């Protein structure tokens, strides 16, 4: 109880720190951009690409968060996302864009239901069930596409295009104004303006929904009695049970929502990131979503920040002639790590601080030694970043205490 009582002030302090760190990060980015003269680092176009690449990862990450907060590891996100791509394509083709979004939610939730039945009712190992869902999802989508899309106009056994997608909006005055400011390449101001222009130009309503779901998730899980009970199932289901919480029901709800979020991520891929369906188009984004959840420390804003970072890496890897830009990002990463190392060192974790500082110096040496990074590296950037961050930040991470553990009704005795 004392923990709960002290929570608000701790949260406030944490927010304060986050704000300062975010500001420091923006200043660093702008400094590096000016110093390396890589203006493409923060153009509205690049940031728009990053946002679009980030949203499917974000939705999968939030889905993972819901399940894990209730104690269920949902590694089946990839499969549920795949089901979502099919649901979006099928329902949007026949009934319009927003029915497509609903269809994706439904298909994702169906995958979630499968996972819930296996792990909650039958106590199957979460990883095994999740992997099974990924494999089954791929097979099911292949079968469904072949059955329903082969004879459609614009379709084939593995593809479908030509369905309605959610509207894109451009905020007239702000978009053009911010774009103009961003083109002046002023220190700091232009970078912020680029971000503003990036999110006010041809912004899909689905993007707004995805970002809004971060706030909704945070509010529901941390500000409502329902959320408290749900999280208690992930921390200590036995204790929750003794307090009269129907643990099974909460776990079911959480995993269904988890699947629906992943399905929405699939819809995003098939409707905003592109406007066509092809089987297997998630390309591992469900797994990256899981990584963004871990990197985001099982916390909605953390998931948002990390998925934006992964999305940025993803977007940059697709730019033409991106060697010099990735080279500049090395310097940025090195500086950020140096800052992180300093924080650690001052905070008393001297060994970690020194190790991180060493890595930062190594990156700096790499930066100084070469002029450009080979394109092979840019493709693997998101994956290297994940590994790297997991290795460095693992001490700070705290997952829900009972996540991944099997729970049987009546265990509390």
């Amino acid at each position: 109880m004392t923990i709960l009582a002290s929570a608000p002030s701790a949260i406030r302090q944490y927010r304060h720190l986050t704000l300062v760190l975010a500001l420091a990060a923006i200043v660093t980015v702008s400094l590096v951009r000016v110093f390396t003269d890589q203006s493409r680092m923060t153009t509205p176009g690049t940031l728009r690409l990053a946002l679009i690449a980030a949203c499917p990862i974000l939705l999968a990450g939030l889905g993972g968060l819901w399940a894990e907060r209730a104690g269920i590891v949902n590694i089946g996100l990839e499969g549920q996302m795949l089901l979502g791509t099919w649901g979006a394509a099928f329902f949007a083709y026949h009934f319009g864009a927003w029915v497509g979004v609903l269809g994706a939610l439904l298909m994702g939730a169906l995958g979630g239901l499968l996972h819930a039945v296996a792990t909650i009712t039958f106590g199957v190992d979460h990883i095994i069930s999740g992997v099974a869902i990924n494999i089954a999802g791929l097979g099911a989508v292949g079968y469904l596409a072949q059955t329903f899309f082969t004879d459609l106009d614009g379709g084939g056994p593995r593809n479908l295009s030509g369905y309605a997608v959610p509207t894109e909006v451009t905020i007239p005055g702000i978009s053009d104004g911010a774009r103009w400011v961003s083109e002046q390449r002023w220190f700091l101001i232009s970078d912020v303006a680029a971000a503003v222009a990036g999110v006010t130009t041809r912004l899909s309503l689905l993007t707004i929904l995805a970002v809004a779901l971060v706030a909704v998730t945070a509010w529901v899980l941390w500000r409502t009695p329902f959320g408290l009970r749900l999280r208690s199932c992930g921390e200590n289901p036995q204790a929750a049970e003794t307090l009269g919480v129907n643990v099974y029901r909460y776990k079911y709800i959480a995993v269904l929502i988890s699947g629906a979020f992943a399905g929405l991520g699939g819809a995003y891929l098939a409707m905003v990131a592109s406007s066509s369906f092809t089987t297997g188009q998630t390309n591992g984004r469900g797994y990256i979503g899981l990584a963004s959840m871990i990197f985001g420390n099982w916390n909605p804003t953390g998931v948002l920040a990390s998925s934006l970072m992964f999305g940025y890496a993803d977007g940059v890897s697709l730019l033409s002639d991106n060697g010099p830009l990735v080279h500049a990002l090395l310097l940025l990463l090195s500086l950020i790590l140096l800052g992180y190392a300093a924080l650690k060192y001052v905070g008393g974790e001297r060994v970690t601080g020194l190790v991180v500082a060493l890595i930062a110096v190594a990156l700096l040496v790499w930066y100084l030694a070469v002029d450009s990074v080979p394109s092979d590296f840019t493709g693997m950037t998101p994956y290297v970043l994940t590994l790297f961050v997991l290795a460095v930040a693992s001490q700070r991470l705290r997952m829900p205490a009972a996540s991944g553990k099997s729970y049987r009704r009546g265990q509390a005795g």
Partner: protein
Amino acid sequence: MRRLTRAAALAGAAALALSACGTAADNDGDGEDTNAQECEVTQIEGDPKVALAYDVGGRGDQSFNDAAYAGFEQAQTEFGFEGTEGEASSDESEEVREQRLRGFAGDGYNVIVGVGFAYSESVDKVAPDYPNVAFAVIDGFDPTEDEQNCNVAYLTFAENEGSFLVGVAAAEQTESNTVGFVGGVNNTLIQKFEAGFAAGVEAVNPDVEVVSTYIEETDPRGFGDPAGGQAAAEGLINDGADVIFHAAGASGIGVFDAVTSADLWAIGVDSDQYLTASPEQQPHILTSMLKRVDVATYDFIKSAVDGEPLSSYSLFTLADEGVGYSTSGDLLSEEIIATIEDYEQQIIDGEIEVPEQP
């Protein structure tokens, strides 16, 4: 991954060896490949039964695989044989492809077409066990140079020549003096498209800049990722490109989405993609680099039906009408078409040699 890189390298080597030989697809027996061993004509048993095994992307990609299907369909209507199709999944292993081919052969299919270079190795393994089945691999190569399989035909194309022509169109059409290229996977085969395209642009106007990017470095999923295609194209548009040529299979649909939203131009690949695009996209598809996979597939099936299936390498060039460009939608102006035709003639006459490497 490693296997794929090696395969790509081999494909390149094969393509180079091939162009050096200068074999034409429809050579009338005059320019026999000197390296080829004496091969008996493959005798298929009974009525021809044709199987088509697709590549990643699959039928409905509105591009490569659909073109193969068009050739297959045309042959089927004409000759009325029994046929079947097999779909590939996005990250299947060599064994799965091999199983698919063996499955077809076991079911009595005696004319089997592997669509895409990925089938080269599996066909090489399977073909010796079924000497009375005629195999073909589109874009294929013989991975083991030592022993030749007499019942395998490798149907390849001079993609660089076709890409040169659409490069000419792009350079004529651009207003920003920047044109873009999106490749699915950064391998030797796709680099051929980029090289030809860049050479065509250069020939018309050396001041036009070509910006290019690849969706994946080695992973074949680059051909089935429309989101990646759209993001790559938007990146090029941000760089100032106003005409974008793609060689990215099913990912190309994303490229069309990007140019449609930005009200710019795209150039399709393999099939005439104007015909399969959605009505919103159509006004933005300037032309398509045609790789007549349909012609190659049809020719091969026809040769098998006629009792003398093609074998060894067949290169379909501009001179053979194995590659080309489309004019559907009448978006290319008459002047541009005239310029393209001029360059086309120069390539056919051998006055212009189109590079294969960027």
